[in-house]
């Protein structure tokens, strides 16, 4: 049961974003820009950062949602599984491993990011912009994970729910122009 009254048909983050729309707008805009805007990191790579951080924070709703989004963008389910288990042996580029390592450090604390991990990322070819965006995506998911779990929102158990959500967020993070009433069960 959520700690505040949220719409039953909108579990997880969506109910919160509909509860207070004036704060939701910059959060949605930021997410759209960081995860779907122009970047030298692919959308799937950026979803992997979101997945690793949400998994580190043990936020099941966000982990399931962004795993499903990354799976959909990648067209397979092995990479998300591997990065959640062990970044260093996952089937991603060395640059991506170094960026995911930075993201995991950000998940613990901003102060946990080491000079060594930054140098490692630069040696693997990461640009300042990629390092910046990695840190900010990781920090943003520390916000989301706390917002979702701190107000005890509902985490659906049915995997089909997350496939539906992934369909939607693969297209983007902006509020649907028609709202979400069509998701109500009749």
């Amino acid at each position, binding site marked *: 049961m959520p*700690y*505040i*009254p949220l719409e039953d048909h909108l579990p997880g983050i969506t109910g*919160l974003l509909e*509860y*207070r729309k*004036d*704060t939701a*707008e*910059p*959060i949605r*805009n*930021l997410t759209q*820009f*960081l995860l779907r*805007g122009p970047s030298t990191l692919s959308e799937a790579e950026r979803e992997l950062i979101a997945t690793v951080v949400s998994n580190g*924070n*043990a*936020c099941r709703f966000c982990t399931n949602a962004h795993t499903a989004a990354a799976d959909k963008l990648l067209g397979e389910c092995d990479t998300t599984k591997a990065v959640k288990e062990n970044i260093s042996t996952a089937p991603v580029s060395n640059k991506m491993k170094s960026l995911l390592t*930075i993201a995991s*450090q*950000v998940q613990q*604390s*901003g*102060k946990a*990011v080491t*000079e060594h991990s*930054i140098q490692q990322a630069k040696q693997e070819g990461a640009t*300042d*912009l990629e*390092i*910046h*965006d990695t*840190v*900010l995506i*990781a*920090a*943003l998911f*520390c*916000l*989301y*994970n*706390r*917002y*979702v*779990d*701190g*107000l*005890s929102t509902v985490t659906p158990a049915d995997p089909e729910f997350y496939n539906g959500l992934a369909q939607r967020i693969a297209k983007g993070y902006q509020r649907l122009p028609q709202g979400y009433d069509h998701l109500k069960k009749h």
Partner: protein
Amino acid sequence: MAHIQVPEGVPGIRSLVMFRPESGQYLYDLAQVLLRGESPLSEAERELIATYVSSRNECVFCTSSHAAAARYLFRDKKQVVDVVLNNYQAAPISEKLKALLNIAGKVQINGKEVLPEEVEQARKQGATDRDIHDTVLIAATFSMFNRYVDGLASFTPTDPQAYDEMGVRMGEKGYVLPTKL
């Protein structure tokens, strides 16, 4: 030295949003609506929550700047800020605000740390749905800002006067995206 090439001599988050204004504008929009927009919590109370969370995350830049903003907004009661940072249970603030600071402290650790009885305690002291919502979102937002500022090792001034000036600006003008020097 910051981990990436941000403008030199510009402190904290300002240097980061000048490096990347495309994301920076939304960060400032969020700070403005959350800390200065419509809320049952006063601007001073919201800055106090931001300061408390930043202090727990040991983010010196965010703690010092938001403490300065809170002191400015509390006016003749400004000493409350330092008492809260030392031990909020002993501070001359309402029991409701103490219960909300307790929730904010839990959010700082992890969302799952917030327990139903702690929310119940806040309600007993008069906290509304929106008080609870805004407290959790402010604490979550500063869990982001603190990580952004320290994760990129942005410049943290050591001169207290630099923060006093920031506090006045944040109190008077709110959160306005800085432009290139």
